[in-house]
Protein backbone atom coordinates (compact mmCIF):
# COMPACT_ATOMS: atom_id res chain seq x y z
CA UNK A 1 0.00 0.00 0.00
CA UNK A 2 1.60 3.26 -0.94
CA UNK A 3 1.40 6.42 1.11
CA UNK A 4 -1.27 8.08 -1.03
CA UNK A 5 -3.63 5.14 -0.70
CA UNK A 6 -2.89 5.09 3.00
CA UNK A 7 -3.80 8.74 3.40
CA UNK A 8 -6.91 8.31 1.28
CA UNK A 9 -8.16 5.39 3.36
CA UNK A 10 -7.25 7.00 6.65
CA UNK A 11 -9.13 10.18 5.83
CA UNK A 12 -12.11 8.21 4.63
CA UNK A 13 -12.16 6.35 7.91
CA UNK A 14 -11.79 9.53 9.95
CA UNK A 15 -14.62 11.16 7.99
CA UNK A 16 -16.86 8.25 8.86
CA UNK A 17 -16.04 8.75 12.53
CA UNK A 18 -16.87 12.44 12.16
CA UNK A 19 -20.17 11.53 10.59
CA UNK A 20 -22.04 14.46 12.11
CA UNK A 21 -20.11 16.89 9.88
CA UNK A 22 -21.04 14.90 6.81
CA UNK A 23 -24.64 14.60 7.88
CA UNK A 24 -24.89 18.36 8.40
CA UNK A 25 -23.84 18.87 4.79
CA UNK A 26 -26.35 16.38 3.45
CA UNK A 27 -29.15 17.76 5.59
CA UNK A 28 -28.32 21.25 4.38
CA UNK A 29 -28.46 20.03 0.79
CA UNK A 30 -31.86 18.39 1.22
CA UNK A 31 -33.34 21.21 3.26
CA UNK A 32 -32.47 23.96 0.82
CA UNK A 33 -33.79 21.94 -2.09
CA UNK A 34 -37.04 21.10 -0.31
CA UNK A 35 -37.70 24.52 1.12
CA UNK A 36 -37.79 26.21 -2.29
CA UNK A 37 -40.98 24.55 -3.57
CA UNK A 38 -42.57 24.92 -0.15
CA UNK A 39 -42.18 28.67 -0.13
CA UNK A 40 -42.30 29.45 -3.85
CA UNK A 41 -44.92 27.13 -5.28
CA UNK A 42 -44.72 23.66 -6.71
CA UNK A 43 -46.24 23.47 -10.19
CA UNK A 44 -44.29 21.39 -12.62
CA UNK A 45 -43.12 24.10 -15.03
CA UNK A 46 -41.88 26.30 -12.25
CA UNK A 47 -40.06 23.43 -10.56
CA UNK A 48 -38.36 22.57 -13.84
CA UNK A 49 -37.25 26.16 -14.19
CA UNK A 50 -35.74 26.43 -10.72
CA UNK A 51 -34.24 22.98 -10.21
CA UNK A 52 -30.89 23.92 -11.80
CA UNK A 53 -30.16 26.97 -9.63
CA UNK A 54 -31.59 25.31 -6.53
CA UNK A 55 -29.46 22.17 -6.82
CA UNK A 56 -26.31 24.17 -7.47
CA UNK A 57 -27.00 26.57 -4.64
CA UNK A 58 -27.66 23.77 -2.20
CA UNK A 59 -24.46 21.97 -3.22
CA UNK A 60 -22.57 25.19 -2.65
CA UNK A 61 -24.03 25.60 0.83
CA UNK A 62 -23.59 21.93 1.70
CA UNK A 63 -19.97 21.85 0.68
CA UNK A 64 -19.33 25.17 2.43
CA UNK A 65 -20.66 23.74 5.67
CA UNK A 66 -18.90 20.41 5.56
CA UNK A 67 -15.62 21.81 4.23
CA UNK A 68 -15.01 24.25 7.04
CA UNK A 69 -13.60 21.30 8.93
CA UNK A 70 -11.35 19.76 6.31
CA UNK A 71 -8.10 20.99 7.86
CA UNK A 72 -9.03 22.49 11.19
CA UNK A 73 -9.15 19.28 13.29
CA UNK A 74 -5.90 18.11 11.70
CA UNK A 75 -4.30 21.42 12.58
CA UNK A 76 -5.44 21.10 16.18
CA UNK A 77 -4.30 17.52 16.70
CA UNK A 78 -0.99 18.08 14.93
CA UNK A 79 -1.41 15.59 12.12
CA UNK A 80 -1.33 18.41 9.55
CA UNK A 81 2.22 19.20 10.62
CA UNK A 82 3.18 15.56 10.23
CA UNK A 83 1.71 15.70 6.72
CA UNK A 84 3.94 18.66 5.86
CA UNK A 85 6.96 16.80 7.24
CA UNK A 86 6.34 13.88 4.93
CA UNK A 87 9.00 12.97 2.41
CA UNK A 88 6.36 12.99 -0.29
CA UNK A 89 5.13 16.05 -2.14
CA UNK A 90 2.60 17.94 -0.08
CA UNK A 91 0.53 18.82 -3.17
CA UNK A 92 0.16 15.16 -3.96
CA UNK A 93 -0.91 14.33 -0.42
CA UNK A 94 -3.38 17.21 -0.44
CA UNK A 95 -4.75 15.99 -3.75
CA UNK A 96 -5.66 12.68 -2.16
CA UNK A 97 -6.93 14.32 0.98
CA UNK A 98 -9.28 16.46 -1.13
CA UNK A 99 -10.32 13.42 -3.14
CA UNK A 100 -11.12 11.48 -0.01
CA UNK A 101 -13.03 14.40 1.38
CA UNK A 102 -14.98 14.62 -1.84
CA UNK A 103 -15.90 10.95 -1.64
CA UNK A 104 -17.15 11.24 1.90
CA UNK A 105 -18.86 14.63 1.73
CA UNK A 106 -20.02 15.08 -1.88
CA UNK A 107 -20.58 11.64 -3.28
CA UNK A 108 -23.66 11.24 -1.03
CA UNK A 109 -24.93 14.52 -2.49
CA UNK A 110 -24.73 13.05 -5.99
CA UNK A 111 -26.90 10.15 -4.88
CA UNK A 112 -29.33 12.32 -2.96
CA UNK A 113 -29.65 14.70 -5.91
CA UNK A 114 -31.40 11.94 -7.86
CA UNK A 115 -34.11 11.86 -5.19
CA UNK A 116 -34.41 15.62 -5.28
CA UNK A 117 -34.62 15.55 -9.06
CA UNK A 118 -37.54 13.15 -8.95
CA UNK A 119 -39.21 15.29 -6.31
CA UNK A 120 -38.90 18.14 -8.81
CA UNK A 121 -40.77 16.04 -11.42
CA UNK A 122 -37.63 15.40 -13.45
CA UNK A 123 -37.79 12.06 -15.22
CA UNK A 124 -35.75 9.61 -17.22
CA UNK A 125 -32.31 10.49 -18.52
CA UNK A 126 -32.56 13.99 -17.11
CA UNK A 127 -32.10 12.58 -13.61
CA UNK A 128 -28.74 11.20 -14.69
CA UNK A 129 -27.87 14.61 -16.11
CA UNK A 130 -28.70 16.24 -12.78
CA UNK A 131 -26.47 13.76 -10.98
CA UNK A 132 -23.68 14.26 -13.48
CA UNK A 133 -23.87 18.03 -13.06
CA UNK A 134 -23.73 17.73 -9.28
CA UNK A 135 -20.76 15.41 -9.64
CA UNK A 136 -18.86 17.81 -11.89
CA UNK A 137 -19.78 20.88 -9.87
CA UNK A 138 -18.87 19.41 -6.48
CA UNK A 139 -15.48 18.19 -7.67
CA UNK A 140 -14.62 21.77 -8.56
CA UNK A 141 -16.22 23.24 -5.47
CA UNK A 142 -14.30 20.91 -3.19
CA UNK A 143 -11.03 22.27 -4.56
CA UNK A 144 -12.03 25.91 -4.25
CA UNK A 145 -13.34 25.20 -0.78
CA UNK A 146 -10.20 23.50 0.39
CA UNK A 147 -8.16 26.48 -0.78
CA UNK A 148 -10.44 28.85 1.09
CA UNK A 149 -10.27 26.62 4.18
CA UNK A 150 -6.49 26.49 4.02
CA UNK A 151 -6.18 30.26 3.61
CA UNK A 152 -8.42 30.91 6.60
CA UNK A 153 -6.86 28.25 8.85
CA UNK A 154 -5.36 30.83 11.15
CA UNK A 155 -8.57 32.84 11.39
CA UNK A 156 -10.67 32.24 14.48
CA UNK A 157 -14.14 32.46 12.90
CA UNK A 158 -13.56 31.66 9.25
CA UNK A 159 -17.17 31.10 8.18
CA UNK A 160 -18.07 34.51 6.78
CA UNK A 161 -14.65 35.07 5.25
CA UNK A 162 -14.74 31.68 3.56
CA UNK A 163 -18.11 32.51 2.05
CA UNK A 164 -16.80 35.81 0.74
CA UNK A 165 -13.76 34.15 -0.82
CA UNK A 166 -15.77 31.27 -2.17
CA UNK A 167 -18.62 33.12 -3.85
CA UNK A 168 -16.80 34.92 -6.67
CA UNK A 169 -14.60 31.91 -7.40
CA UNK A 170 -17.51 29.50 -7.63
CA UNK A 171 -19.84 31.75 -9.60
CA UNK A 172 -18.91 30.29 -13.02
CA UNK A 173 -19.68 26.78 -11.74
CA UNK A 174 -23.08 27.87 -10.47
CA UNK A 175 -23.97 29.59 -13.73
CA UNK A 176 -22.89 26.81 -16.05
CA UNK A 177 -24.11 24.05 -13.77
CA UNK A 178 -27.63 25.38 -13.58
CA UNK A 179 -27.62 25.99 -17.33
CA UNK A 180 -26.59 22.40 -17.94
CA UNK A 181 -29.56 21.12 -15.97
CA UNK A 182 -31.94 23.60 -17.58
CA UNK A 183 -30.80 22.70 -21.11
CA UNK A 184 -31.09 19.02 -20.41
CA UNK A 185 -34.68 19.40 -19.17
CA UNK A 186 -35.57 21.59 -22.15
CA UNK A 187 -34.08 18.97 -24.43
CA UNK A 188 -31.42 21.31 -25.79
CA UNK A 189 -27.80 20.59 -26.60
CA UNK A 190 -25.89 20.38 -23.33
CA UNK A 191 -22.38 19.79 -24.61
CA UNK A 192 -21.34 23.45 -24.13
CA UNK A 193 -21.96 23.69 -20.38
CA UNK A 194 -20.63 20.18 -19.86
CA UNK A 195 -17.38 20.90 -21.63
CA UNK A 196 -17.04 23.97 -19.48
CA UNK A 197 -17.74 22.11 -16.24
CA UNK A 198 -15.31 19.35 -17.15
CA UNK A 199 -12.67 21.90 -18.04
CA UNK A 200 -13.15 23.66 -14.73
CA UNK A 201 -12.89 20.37 -12.89
CA UNK A 202 -9.59 19.54 -14.57
CA UNK A 203 -8.28 23.05 -13.98
CA UNK A 204 -9.26 23.01 -10.33
CA UNK A 205 -7.76 19.58 -9.72
CA UNK A 206 -4.50 20.63 -11.31
CA UNK A 207 -4.17 24.01 -9.58
CA UNK A 208 -6.20 23.48 -6.40
CA UNK A 209 -3.94 21.04 -4.55
CA UNK A 210 -0.82 23.10 -5.36
CA UNK A 211 -2.37 26.33 -4.14
CA UNK A 212 -3.86 24.59 -1.09
CA UNK A 213 -0.52 23.02 -0.18
CA UNK A 214 1.15 26.42 -0.44
CA UNK A 215 -1.56 27.99 1.70
CA UNK A 216 -1.17 25.26 4.35
CA UNK A 217 2.55 25.84 4.59
CA UNK A 218 1.82 29.52 5.16
CA UNK A 219 -0.92 28.87 7.69
CA UNK A 220 0.97 26.47 9.93
CA UNK A 221 4.07 28.66 10.01
Amino acid sequence: MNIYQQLFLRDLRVSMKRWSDLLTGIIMFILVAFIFPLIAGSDKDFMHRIIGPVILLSSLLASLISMQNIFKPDLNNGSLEQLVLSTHSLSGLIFFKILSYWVSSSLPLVVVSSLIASAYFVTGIDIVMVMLTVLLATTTLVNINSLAAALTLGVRYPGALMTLILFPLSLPILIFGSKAIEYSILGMDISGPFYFLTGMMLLSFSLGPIATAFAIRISID
Partner: protein
Amino acid sequence: MQSDVLQLQSASLYRDDQLIFSDISFDLKGGNHLIIKGNNGSGKTSLIRTLCGLTQLTEGSVLWNHNPIDGISSDYYKHLAYLAHTNGLIPELTLLENLTYSLQMTDLDKDHSVLEGFQLKQSLNSPIATLSNGQSRKTALSFIIMSRKKLWVFDEPYANLDSQSIDYLNQQIAAHLSDNGMVITSTNREEVIPTTNLEITMS
Protein backbone atom coordinates in the same frame (compact mmCIF):
# COMPACT_ATOMS: atom_id res chain seq x y z
CA MET B 1 30.07 5.85 6.53
CA GLN B 2 29.69 9.56 6.15
CA SER B 3 28.27 10.94 9.36
CA ASP B 4 25.39 13.36 9.17
CA VAL B 5 25.44 16.79 10.72
CA LEU B 6 22.73 19.35 11.49
CA GLN B 7 23.90 22.93 11.78
CA LEU B 8 22.17 26.10 12.80
CA GLN B 9 24.06 29.22 11.77
CA SER B 10 23.51 32.59 13.47
CA ALA B 11 19.75 32.14 13.42
CA SER B 12 17.34 34.91 14.34
CA LEU B 13 13.59 34.91 14.22
CA TYR B 14 11.24 37.84 14.33
CA ARG B 15 7.48 37.69 14.28
CA ASP B 16 6.62 41.07 12.83
CA ASP B 17 8.49 43.37 15.24
CA GLN B 18 8.79 40.93 18.05
CA LEU B 19 12.17 39.29 18.54
CA ILE B 20 11.70 35.61 19.35
CA PHE B 21 15.37 34.65 19.47
CA SER B 22 18.57 35.93 17.97
CA ASP B 23 21.97 34.67 16.96
CA ILE B 24 21.81 31.01 17.92
CA SER B 25 24.32 28.60 16.40
CA PHE B 26 25.24 24.99 16.97
CA ASP B 27 26.57 21.89 15.26
CA LEU B 28 24.83 18.60 16.02
CA LYS B 29 26.62 15.40 15.01
CA GLY B 30 25.75 11.74 15.35
CA GLY B 31 25.65 10.69 19.00
CA ASN B 32 24.96 14.21 20.24
CA HIS B 33 22.01 15.21 22.38
CA LEU B 34 21.00 18.86 22.30
CA ILE B 35 18.89 20.20 25.15
CA ILE B 36 16.98 23.45 24.72
CA LYS B 37 16.15 24.91 28.11
CA GLY B 38 14.03 27.87 28.97
CA ASN B 39 10.81 29.02 30.54
CA ASN B 40 7.45 29.01 28.84
CA GLY B 41 7.29 31.57 26.07
CA SER B 42 11.05 31.78 25.66
CA GLY B 43 10.91 30.63 22.05
CA LYS B 44 11.78 26.94 22.46
CA THR B 45 8.95 25.78 20.26
CA SER B 46 9.72 28.40 17.61
CA LEU B 47 13.34 27.30 17.52
CA ILE B 48 12.35 23.68 17.15
CA ARG B 49 9.87 24.48 14.40
CA THR B 50 12.54 26.32 12.44
CA LEU B 51 14.77 23.26 12.79
CA CYS B 52 12.00 21.21 11.20
CA GLY B 53 11.53 23.73 8.39
CA LEU B 54 7.99 24.57 9.49
CA THR B 55 8.90 28.17 10.27
CA GLN B 56 11.20 30.28 8.13
CA LEU B 57 14.11 32.00 9.87
CA THR B 58 14.34 35.76 9.50
CA GLU B 59 18.14 35.57 9.41
CA GLY B 60 20.56 32.68 9.33
CA SER B 61 20.06 29.16 8.07
CA VAL B 62 19.48 25.54 9.02
CA LEU B 63 21.86 23.18 7.27
CA TRP B 64 21.66 19.40 6.92
CA ASN B 65 24.97 17.99 5.75
CA HIS B 66 25.93 21.55 4.74
CA ASN B 67 22.88 22.11 2.53
CA PRO B 68 20.05 24.51 3.47
CA ILE B 69 17.05 22.39 4.38
CA ASP B 70 14.57 24.35 2.23
CA GLY B 71 16.28 23.04 -0.88
CA ILE B 72 16.54 19.39 0.20
CA SER B 73 13.48 19.09 2.39
CA SER B 74 12.33 15.70 1.09
CA ASP B 75 15.81 14.29 1.68
CA TYR B 76 16.01 15.92 5.10
CA TYR B 77 12.60 14.66 6.15
CA LYS B 78 13.74 11.09 5.50
CA HIS B 79 15.86 11.47 8.61
CA LEU B 80 13.61 13.65 10.75
CA ALA B 81 11.01 12.57 13.29
CA TYR B 82 9.26 15.40 15.09
CA LEU B 83 7.06 15.34 18.16
CA ALA B 84 5.18 18.59 18.65
CA HIS B 85 3.16 19.85 21.61
CA THR B 86 0.21 18.30 19.91
CA ASN B 87 0.75 14.61 19.51
CA GLY B 88 -0.03 14.35 15.82
CA LEU B 89 -2.44 11.51 16.49
CA ILE B 90 -5.99 11.38 15.24
CA PRO B 91 -8.22 11.11 18.31
CA GLU B 92 -11.03 9.29 16.53
CA LEU B 93 -8.82 6.39 15.47
CA THR B 94 -7.45 3.69 17.74
CA LEU B 95 -3.79 3.39 18.64
CA LEU B 96 -3.33 0.54 16.22
CA GLU B 97 -5.07 2.38 13.38
CA ASN B 98 -2.94 5.43 14.02
CA LEU B 99 0.06 3.18 13.79
CA THR B 100 -1.05 1.56 10.54
CA TYR B 101 -1.95 4.83 8.87
CA SER B 102 0.99 6.69 10.29
CA LEU B 103 2.21 8.61 7.29
CA GLN B 104 5.53 9.92 8.29
CA MET B 105 6.99 6.63 9.33
CA THR B 106 6.47 4.44 6.34
CA ASP B 107 8.82 1.74 7.60
CA LEU B 108 7.61 1.54 11.16
CA ASP B 109 9.11 -1.10 13.33
CA LYS B 110 6.50 -3.79 13.40
CA ASP B 111 7.44 -5.44 16.66
CA HIS B 112 5.77 -3.61 19.46
CA SER B 113 8.41 -3.79 22.15
CA VAL B 114 8.46 -0.02 22.56
CA LEU B 115 4.73 0.04 23.12
CA GLU B 116 5.25 -2.65 25.72
CA GLY B 117 7.98 -0.62 27.37
CA PHE B 118 5.54 2.28 27.70
CA GLN B 119 2.84 -0.12 29.00
CA LEU B 120 0.57 0.62 26.06
CA LYS B 121 0.04 -2.97 24.95
CA GLN B 122 -3.40 -3.20 26.54
CA SER B 123 -4.63 0.03 24.91
CA LEU B 124 -3.89 -1.01 21.33
CA ASN B 125 -7.54 -1.05 20.32
CA SER B 126 -8.86 1.96 22.21
CA PRO B 127 -9.37 5.24 20.38
CA ILE B 128 -6.77 7.88 21.23
CA ALA B 129 -9.54 10.13 22.51
CA THR B 130 -10.26 7.69 25.34
CA LEU B 131 -6.63 7.52 26.49
CA SER B 132 -5.27 9.78 29.20
CA ASN B 133 -2.97 12.67 28.30
CA GLY B 134 0.04 10.75 29.50
CA GLN B 135 -0.91 7.68 27.51
CA SER B 136 -1.39 9.57 24.26
CA ARG B 137 1.91 11.35 24.86
CA LYS B 138 3.57 7.98 25.30
CA THR B 139 1.95 6.72 22.12
CA ALA B 140 3.32 9.63 20.14
CA LEU B 141 6.75 9.14 21.71
CA SER B 142 6.82 5.47 20.86
CA PHE B 143 5.94 6.24 17.23
CA ILE B 144 9.01 8.46 17.05
CA ILE B 145 11.19 5.84 18.68
CA MET B 146 9.88 3.14 16.36
CA SER B 147 10.37 5.28 13.26
CA ARG B 148 14.08 4.36 12.90
CA LYS B 149 14.85 7.91 11.84
CA LYS B 150 18.19 9.45 12.50
CA LEU B 151 17.18 12.75 14.05
CA TRP B 152 14.60 12.85 16.82
CA VAL B 153 13.16 16.22 17.70
CA PHE B 154 11.08 16.34 20.89
CA ASP B 155 9.16 19.36 22.08
CA GLU B 156 8.54 18.92 25.82
CA PRO B 157 8.61 15.12 25.81
CA TYR B 158 8.49 14.84 29.57
CA ALA B 159 5.18 16.64 29.96
CA ASN B 160 2.51 14.38 31.51
CA LEU B 161 4.88 11.42 31.92
CA ASP B 162 5.20 9.35 35.08
CA SER B 163 8.66 8.63 36.46
CA GLN B 164 8.75 5.08 35.10
CA SER B 165 8.10 6.29 31.56
CA ILE B 166 10.64 9.06 31.93
CA ASP B 167 13.25 6.45 32.78
CA TYR B 168 12.21 4.33 29.83
CA LEU B 169 12.37 7.33 27.48
CA ASN B 170 15.83 8.26 28.73
CA GLN B 171 16.94 4.68 28.18
CA GLN B 172 15.68 4.76 24.62
CA ILE B 173 17.36 8.10 23.97
CA ALA B 174 20.64 6.76 25.31
CA ALA B 175 20.36 3.71 23.08
CA HIS B 176 19.62 5.89 20.06
CA LEU B 177 22.61 8.11 20.82
CA SER B 178 24.98 5.19 21.19
CA ASP B 179 23.66 4.06 17.82
CA ASN B 180 25.06 7.29 16.35
CA GLY B 181 21.63 8.99 16.28
CA MET B 182 20.87 12.61 17.11
CA VAL B 183 18.32 13.94 19.57
CA ILE B 184 17.01 17.44 20.19
CA THR B 185 14.90 17.95 23.29
CA SER B 186 13.27 21.03 24.68
CA THR B 187 12.17 21.08 28.27
CA ASN B 188 11.62 23.23 31.30
CA ARG B 189 11.95 20.30 33.71
CA GLU B 190 15.68 20.23 34.27
CA GLU B 191 15.66 17.55 36.94
CA VAL B 192 14.74 14.74 34.56
CA ILE B 193 17.20 15.38 31.74
CA PRO B 194 20.09 13.02 31.30
CA THR B 195 23.52 14.62 31.11
CA THR B 196 24.32 15.94 27.69
CA ASN B 197 27.10 17.52 25.74
CA LEU B 198 25.12 20.37 24.12
CA GLU B 199 22.88 22.92 25.78
CA ILE B 200 21.08 26.06 24.75
CA THR B 201 19.30 28.21 27.27
CA MET B 202 16.66 30.51 25.87
CA SER B 203 15.62 33.65 27.67
